[in-house]
C-alpha cells in the first residue's frame, strides 16, 4: 500500500488550533509566565524560578483557604448526592407529575450564578429577608453577615438549593433506564425495599452517579460567583474559598506572581482529583 504524502491536511487543523490557543493555551501560558517571574509593570519581568510555588505551598493563608474549600466540597457532596438520589427515587414515574417535577427541578439550574447569590443575599438578610427574619423571629440568633457559622450555613443551603437538582436529574435518568423486569423479579424473589435499592437501583445508577459526583466536585471546588455575591468571602475570611482568596490576591493585592503560582497549584489539584476518581470508578467497572 502506497500512502500519498500530503501535508496540506495540516491546514484543516488550524481553525481548531487557533480557537484552542485563544481560549486556553495563551491565557494559561500567561499565567505560567507570571508564576515564574516577578513584575513591576511596564512589561518588565525578573526570573524568580520556583520561589512563588514554595511560598504558596507553605503559606498558612493558602492552607486555610484550601481547608475551607475541601470542607465545603465534602459537605455539599455528602448532602447533595444522597439527597439527590432520595428525591429521584421519590419522583413520579408516569403521568402529569413527571413534566411538572422535571421543570421544577430544572429551575434552579437555569438561574445565573450571580442572580442566585443576590437572591440568597436578600432572602437571608436578618432584618428584611424572609429566611433571616423568620429564623430570628423563631428565636435563632441568625446573622450571616457577622457570624461565620451562619455564613457557612447559608452558603451550603444556597448551593444545595442550586445544584441538588443536577444530581436528581442524572439519578432520575439512571433510574428510568432500569427494565421493569428487574423490579418484577425482585418482587417475586421477595426482596426488601433496601435490597432493591442496594442490588438493582444503585448498581444501575453507578455511571450517572460517577458523572454527578465529578461534576459536583469540580463545580463546588471552583465555586466563586455565588459566595462572592452572598458573603464576599466573609465575615472575615470565614467563607473565602480558594477562588475567592485567589482573586483577592491577584486583583486586590496585585500579587500576580504568587497568585499565578496558586492558580497552577489549584488547577493541578482539580485535575489530579478528577483523574484519580475517574480511574478508580472505571477500574471497578472493568473488574466487574
Amino acid at each position, binding site marked *: 500500500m502506497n500512502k500519498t504524502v500530503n501535508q496540506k491536511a495540516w491546514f484543516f487543523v488550524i481553525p481548531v488550533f487557533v480557537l484552542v490557543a485563544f481560549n486556553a493555551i495563551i491565557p494559561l501560558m500567561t499565567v505560567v509566565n507570571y508564576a515564574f517571574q516577578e513584575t513591576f509593570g511596564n512589561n518588565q519581568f525578573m526570573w524568580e524560578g520556583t520561589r512563588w510555588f514554595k511560598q504558596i505551598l507553605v503559606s498558612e493563608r493558602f492552607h486555610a483557604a484550601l481547608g475551607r474549600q475541601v470542607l465545603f466540597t465534602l459537605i455539599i457532596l455528602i448532602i447533595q448526592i444522597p439527597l439527590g438520589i432520595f428525591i429521584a427515587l421519590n419522583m413520579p414515574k408516569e403521568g402529569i407529575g413527571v413534566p411538572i417535577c422535571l421543570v421544577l427541578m430544572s429551575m434552579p439550574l437555569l438561574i445565573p450564578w450571580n442572580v442566585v447569590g443576590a437572591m440568597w443575599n436578600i432572602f437571608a438578610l436578618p432584618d428584611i429577608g424572609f429566611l433571616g427574619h423568620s429564623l430570628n423571629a423563631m428565636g435563632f440568633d441568625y446573622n450571616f453577615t457577622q457570624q461565620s457559622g451562619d455564613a457557612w450555613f447559608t452558603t451550603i443551603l444556597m448551593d444545595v438549593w442550586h445544584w441538588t437538582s443536577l444530581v436528581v436529574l442524572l439519578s432520575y435518568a439512571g433510574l428510568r433506564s432500569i427494565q421493569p423486569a428487574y423490579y418484577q423479579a425482585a418482587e417475586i424473589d421477595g426482596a426488601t425495599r433496601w435490597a432493591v435499592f442496594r*442490588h438493582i437501583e444503585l448498581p444501575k445508577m453507578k455511571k450517572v452517579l460517577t458523572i454527578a459526583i465529578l461534576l459536583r466536585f469540580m463545580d463546588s471546588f471552583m465555586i466563586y460567583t455565588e459566595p462572592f455575591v452572598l458573603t464576599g468571602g466573609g465575615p472575615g475570611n470565614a467563607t473565602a474559598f480558594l477562588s475567592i482568596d485567589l482573586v483577592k490576591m491577584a486583583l486586590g493585592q496585585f500579587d500576580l506572581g504568587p497568585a499565578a503560582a496558586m492558580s497552577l497549584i489549584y488547577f493541578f489539584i482539580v485535575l489530579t482529583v478528577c483523574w484519580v476518581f475517574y480511574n478508580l470508578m472505571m477500574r471497578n467497572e472493568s473488574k466487574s
Partner: protein
Amino acid sequence: MSKITLQDLSHSYLQSQNKDEDWAIRNVNIDWQDGGAYALLGPSGCGKTTLLNIISGLINPTKGKILFNDEDITKKNPVERNIAQIFQFPVIYDTMTVFENLAFPLRNRQIPEDEINNKVNEIAEMLELTSTLNNRASGLTADGKQKISLGRGLARSDVNVIMFDEPLTVIDPHLKWILRSKLKELHQKIKRTMIYVTHDQTEALTFADQVVVMHDGQIVQTGTPVELFEKPKHTFVGHFIGSPGMNILSCQINNGSVTINGTKIETSNSKIGTSNFSKIELGIRPEFISFDKKGLPVKILNVSNTGKNKIIETESDGGKIKLIIKAGEKVPEGSAFLTFKKDYTYVYGDDWIVEK
C-alpha cells in the same frame, strides 16, 4: 404445588373500555391441574405476558378471579402467592456472585444458611453453573445470565407454580435446545406446575402437555399438541401452528354440502344446514392433501424442496393451497387435481370451527 383456576379474567390497561380492542385479555377461563406442564402460545401482543403477570400478581386484573387450590388469591401480592417467574431478558443482581444470586430468594425468606448451601449447589449442578459459583454474575454471557435467572426461579422448593416468559429468546439456538430439554427433564423430576409462555410453536409443543393458544386477548383453543395439529378449533390455530400452516380456503355451502366453485369437498363436519355465518371457510393442513386424477383443479405455482419434503404452492378457485409431499414423489406440470383427507378437512364459520 397447586392447581390454578382462572375465572372470567379480563384486563385492560386503559381507564375505560368501550370496545373489544380496549382489552388486553378478555374472558379467560382456565383450569390447570397440579403438576402439569402448560404452554401459553401466541404471537407478540396477544396478551400472554399480561396473563402471566396477572397470575404472578404483578398486575391486578380489571375483572375476574384467580384461584390457587380453590382459594381466591386475586388480591394477594407475588410474595404471598409464592410463585417463581423467569423473564424474557436475564435479570441478575450485578453486585452479587453467582452463588449469592441463586441464594437471594432463599435468604429473603430467612431460610437457614446450610439449607441454602445445599439447595444452591444442587441447582448449580443441574444447570452446570458449579464452576462459576464464586464469579461475579455480571461477567457472564447472556445465556449464563439466563441460567442464573432460571436457577433463582427453581431455587425455592415450595413454590405454587413456576412461570417462564419466553425465557430462551436471548439464548443461542443450540443451547436453546439443550436448555429446553433440561426444563422438560426438570419438570419430570420435580413435578411442579409450570407455565411456559412463548410465540415459538416448537418450544410450546415440545415443552407442554397442554397448550393454550391465545389470539387478540382471547383463548382460542386449549389442547394437546396433537389436538391442536389435527383439529384446530379456530383458523388462527390452523395457520399459527404448523409449517406451513393450514390452508384456509373460501368455500360455499350448497344443500348441506361444501363446494369450492362447484367442486364438492368432503369434510368431517359438513352436516351443516344453511349458514348464519358472515364468512364460511374450509381448512385443510398441507400434510393431508395429495395429488389425484380427479378432485379440486389447481395450477402449480411454485415448488420448494426442504430436503426430506417438497412444499408445493398451488392456486385454486378458493385461494392459494400449499401441500407437502415426499421429496421423491413426482410433481405434475402446469395443472393438477387435489384431494383432501376427509377426516382432517374442516368447515369454519366466522373463523370458528363448525361443530357437527
